[in-house]
């Protein structure tokens, strides 16, 4: 089975494994504590977890 199917199965197995480890070691999901569906109009500041964000200690 040396086709792209093998690659895809491997990629998704690794991804599911990562999510499994993540869910086991993270705060539980809670839809009632989730932010509003849209950031625009929410009145909340952006989180800043973006690759372009310059890290500062502030």
């Amino acid at each position, binding site marked *: 089975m*040396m*086709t*792209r*199917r*093998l*690659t*895809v199965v*491997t*990629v*998704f197995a*690794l*991804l599911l494994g*990562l*999510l499994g*480890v*993540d*869910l*086991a*070691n*993270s*705060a*539980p*999901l*809670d*839809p009632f*504590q*989730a*932010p*509003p*569906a*849209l*950031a*625009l*109009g*929410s*009145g*909340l*500041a*952006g*989180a*800043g*977890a*973006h*690759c*372009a*964000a*310059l*890290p*500062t*200690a502030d």
Partner: protein
Amino acid sequence: MTSAAAIAPARSSTLTRTGLILGALVAILGLSATAGVRYGLLLAVGLGFGLILEGFRFGFAGPWRAMILRREPAGLIAQLLSIALVALVAIPLIANNGTELIGAHAPVGYAMIGGAFVFGACMQIVLGCGSGTLVNAGSGNPVSALALPFFAIGSFAGAYHLLWWTNLGTAPVVVLSGTSGLVLTLAGLAAVAGLALYLAAPGARSLPRRLWIAAGLLAVLALANLVVAGQPWGVVYGLGLWAAKGVTALGMDISGSAFWTLPTNQARIAESLLTDVTSLTNIGIIGGAFIIAAWRSGLSARLPQLPLRAWIGTIIAGFLLGYSSRLAFGCNVGAFFSGISTGSLHGWVWFVAAFAGAFQGIRIRKALGLDG
């Protein structure tokens, strides 16, 4: 006798296609119900990115290669068009909603320029950029599938050392904002497109219909990303976070990193990836590309036979893609696409440095035997 039916890959069945659509809908609705509507929407946006990038064959690394080697500018111009469409809405939107929405604004610096150059080279070596590596991995490309975990490790490591690198010399953040900023951004994009058309080979100046459509749809999704998440489309932060999650689960102490100990990043490590913006869109891109590949029955293609040096080169290039993109404050998505479209000067500098690096990467790719 070889019939056409024997040569052509079998089309996916209606059952398979129905399953793909249902699977995507269940994932979106399930995540909305268990984590929150915003996260379901972000997964949907990511799936849309993957569907468009793979479905319309819209890329970044390939079109740069086509421009450099064959002077075919169509793919590059499609990128510039999509960025312009986003800028038309995003720059005024961020200006009027500065608390809720942030741009991909970062400073220019020595490490930023060097990082972009290395990224540009590596994206030609593996022929996959930030988004391209995800798309290709999702559609079964073994080179990108191998590069992806090392991309994530490199992104984690680059972020780990980021403040050391920025301390080498970093200028203040420059943002092209307001009407003048928007006009400058659009004029810059038009100038690059004009130069690409001027340099184009005869007969290569037209844009295929699929690229017009893809550029428009990609712009709509990038704006949706901004409106839903409060930040522009990005890739690299999420990949670094995946590795950070992995190493902390294994017990590694990351308290020595000024970056990963910042409150924002500590919060991201403590919370699930299913509530992280870039992780969700990254997962969506992989899933969207998979849907297209399975829909077209493209998963039955045989894997290429590549020399060992090609696989070793892929691992090194994958790591460097991640590491360099952190120093460069983003990849082709976070810096080039989102940086320029939200008015950041670093996006323009990234583009020049990465394009220069692409010339070197094309040579290295050939030497590694990755051209087949």
